[in-house]
């Protein structure tokens, strides 16, 4: 078996015809990850014991004649902001460098109950803050497609692991594009579900009202299958949705002829790049499949970056307050007073990007500034959501680029945080509106760098989103 080419279907088929056992597959996947991970640094921890224990449970179930779970035996990488009980979970931060959480995230429990085999914990930007995975305290991740380039971020390790083959599917988290952007940079499928579709219990919070857990996969069907496993109401997360989870696979092949596709004009302004050309080709493919494509407008888009960086940083400044040196193994020594302990621990523990966002967030919530920043940003957020509501009443889905440019070189944008923030422009509106979004590979640039096409749909309309992406993928996508 070649683990780097497996899909969920091929794992299922291999297990069914006894080509390999789950333990054999896990052993080989662990070996492959151990040998290959050094090239990318995609995984921070390879959890052999836990993987083999999960694989043994799958084999025992099969031996007992039980029907295998939807992810039976499938090697999975889990972003290191998602808690795995007993397995070190660092969030890419020095502050949690030795943190062993006492419990599993709900998504982790569900994926293991479905037979998934967690191979390792995926590297990421510290506390999921970044667009390149260069903000990890444990070294950057290299893009397996071009090792001198970033994999995107913040879920760069998850995307790179799936692209590299050290996992078949992966969990990431998305607050402003942290799943879709690395998926597009690494040439894999990445899904941000509707807000509330997947429980956040056990996801180390960055910005609670924007945080999502979602899947990475090498094809749309695998992503849909993984989402089906982790989605659904969780009583431990008050913001998780009660709406029943549809069978995401049953409608995949229903065809897309007649679907109405909107192209938000604001997302294509000045996109005269290779990325723009590839997306245009992708849209042509959709047209050939029978979709009715038209332009629409999302006028509040121009305020999205400002709105996002106020709300996200405000929530982050509060969510990260708990890392104060009292708990979680990291405390600055040599602190004479409580105040010094706080300042030294946080000063030494947080990286530059986290500090920047904590300061921004603290500022916008401060007395006298709250109304001008936070409150106004909430109103803008409402306008952005209304834009989408109006647009998605006229069309079934929106198609846009994921990022203005493909994977850039390591270090290229580190000096200019603002430019890095601006590159989130196409992805953050989806998080602000709480609607589902997906990145599907849409050809490569002349240099061979992958470009992703974004599909956005109505709240809880993941079935349509998957159907469209699957049809696009089956049609061969865009060559290049």
């Amino acid at each position, binding site marked *: 078996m070649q683990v780097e080419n497996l899909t969920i279907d091929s794992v299922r088929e291999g297990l069914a015809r006894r080509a390999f056992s789950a333990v054999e597959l896990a052993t080989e996947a662990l070996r492959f990850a151990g040998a290959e991970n050094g090239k990318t640094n995609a995984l921070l921890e390879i959890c052999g014991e836990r993987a083999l224990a999960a694989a043994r449970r799958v084999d025992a179930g099969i031996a007992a004649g039980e029907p295998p779970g939807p992810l039976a035996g499938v090697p999975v990488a889990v972003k290191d902001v*998602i*808690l795995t009980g007993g397995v070190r979970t660092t*969030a890419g931060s020095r502050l*949690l460098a030795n*943190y062993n*959480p*006492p*419990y599993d*995230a709900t998504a982790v429990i569900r994926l293991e109950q479905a037979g998934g085999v967690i191979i390792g914990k995926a590297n990421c930007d510290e506390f999921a803050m970044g667009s390149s995975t260069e903000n990890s305290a444990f070294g950057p991740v290299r893009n397996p497609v071009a090792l001198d380039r970033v994999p995107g971020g913040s879920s760069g390790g998850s995307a790179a692991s799936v692209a590299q083959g050290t996992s078949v599917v992966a969990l990431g988290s998305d607050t402003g594009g942290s799943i879709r952007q690395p998926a597009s940079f690494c040439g894999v499928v990445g899904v941000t579900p509707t807000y509330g579709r997947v429980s*956040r*219990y*056990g*996801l*180390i*919070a960055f*910005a*609670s*009202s924007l945080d999502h857990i979602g899947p990475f996969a090498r094809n749309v069907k695998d992503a849909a299958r993984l989402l089906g496993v982790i989605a659904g109401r969780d*009583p*431990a*997360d*008050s*913001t998780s949705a009660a709406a029943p989870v549809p069978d995401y696979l049953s409608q995949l092949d229903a065809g897309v002829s007649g679907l109405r596709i909107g192209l938000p004009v604001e997302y294509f302004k000045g996109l005269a790049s290779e990325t723009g050309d590839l997306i245009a080709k992708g849209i042509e493919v959709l047209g050939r499949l029978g979709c009715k494509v038209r332009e629409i407008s999302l006028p509040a888009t121009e305020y999205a970056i400002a709105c996002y960086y106020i709300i996200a940083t*405000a*929530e982050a*400044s*509060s969510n*990260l*307050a*708990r890392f*104060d040196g*009292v*708990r*979680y193994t990291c405390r600055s020594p040599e602190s004479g007073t*409580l105040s010094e302990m*706080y300042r030294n621990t946080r000063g030494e523990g947080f990286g530059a990007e986290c500090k920047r966002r904590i300061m921004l967030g*603290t500022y916008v*919530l*401060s*007395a006298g500034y*709250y109304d001008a920043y*936070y409150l106004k940003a909430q109103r803008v957020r409402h306008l952005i959501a209304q834009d989408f509501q109006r647009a998605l009443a006229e069309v079934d889905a929106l198609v846009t680029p994921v990022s203005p440019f493909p994977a850039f070189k390591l270090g290229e944008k580190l000096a200019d945080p603002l430019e890095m923030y601006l590159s989130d422009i196409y992805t953050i509106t989806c998080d602000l509106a709480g609607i589902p979004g997906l990145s599907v590979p849409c050809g490569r640039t002349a240099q061979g760098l992958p470009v992703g096409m974004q599909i956005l749909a109505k709240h809880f309309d993941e079935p349509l989103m998957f159907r469209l992406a699957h049809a696009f993928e089956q049609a061969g996508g865009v060559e290049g």
Partner: protein
Amino acid sequence: MSSSVEAGVPPEILAQYEPVIGLEVHVQLATRTKIFCACPTSFGAQPNSNVCPVCLGLPGALPVLNRQAVEMAIRAALALNCEVRQRSIFARKNYFYPDLPKGYQISQYDQPLAEHGSIEISLDGGKKRIGITRVHLEDDAGKSMHEGFKDSDRYSYVDLNRSGTPLIEIVSEPDMRSSDEAYAYLTDLKQVMQYIEVSSCDMEKGHLRCDANVSVRRRGADRFGTKAEVKNLNSFRFLKLALDHEIQRQIAILESGGQVMQETRLFNVATGETVGMRSKEHAHDYRYFPEPDLLPLRTSDAWRNRIREETPELPARKRERFASEYGIREYDAQVLTLTRAAAEYFEKAAAASGDPRTTANWVTGDLMGLLRAAGKDISESPVRAEDLGGLVRMIARGEVTGKLAKEILAKMFTSGESARAVMAREGLEQISDAGALEKIVEEVIANNPKQVAQYKAGKAAVLGFLVGQVMKASRGQANPSMVNEVLRAKLG
């Protein structure tokens, strides 16, 4: 400012000023589990044992609101005549402290659970309405322990058992004008909270905590003075002491031409003084914002109405009813309505006796005396309400004398038996047998020749003395009306 200065404020100067006081009272709700997780709220467990990822504030953990806590908070708000909002919002109150594990408290800010209430308090000179600004829900922090460990000189310890305990904060309007009014407000507030069973209000366990906003102004002035917030008023005595001290301190400052600073002050139990803690410039900026992990709290009309219907009769109304319905004295009515248990006991006993006024006397007098001596609450009374009622009924019927009844009650208190059971066991049943009575009467006539002669000479009042002698000789057991009858007959 030392206390010697304030002690120097003469009463005639004090009288020129009017204190203005508002209280912020935290009440711990008597839920079984914490407000955002299923950990028990029990007191006195091993440190850090009643905890889980949620109340430890671990990364990734999320709050889930306890319905029972909301229900109790609504009950409290309705008992304080508040309007309960259909939609209220939880907010994060951000500050750093080692016993605050999330780095923020989940509270409510600009859209609290309930607003615009009031409570009528009883004062010596009558009644007064105190406005309630708001009632909101929040979670409690843990406890820092700075003493008692062998390395306490270098470390503090944190116990998070209390973290996540449900609280309501009740904020009053600045409607109180003396420490006595503040005392009365807290007393009545506590009584209401206990009546509706949302809290045991045990101050020693921190179930009821009080901070005060205090300012003074010259009598007749229409604007409030600059206020100080006084914290740590965790007993009724401290509340009064601290307020009196703070009022005098502020007056002394104004009298000496100074200005009161807006600041937070801490009451020092040892010195009886308030001490500056932080000035306005150093006041916390809590950076409140809506808690994104919780949905807005919606209360339906049906829910609020059901809670309203289930709310028991409150002490003020019960007092009035006891006075009007049973015709008992106002003071007795007040004593009998101090707790719901006392009121229920009385009503049950009164129903059994058919004589509420006499019953009230027995409950507030002998029974409460026995309970006090035994250190028991009326809810633990060994004498059942029905049995006390039975005893009072026997007195009314003349089956026992009041004096004997006291003895019987004491025995009932010891054994837990009914009056009749005690009397049967102790041979205390009334002597209504004519033969036995005649014998005693004859003895009394024989032993009191002088009085008998006086009676026969026409001094009818002496009969009372002779009846008393018969009762005494029978150890109170003789049927009094029969004694009269027999005596008259014998004396011819």
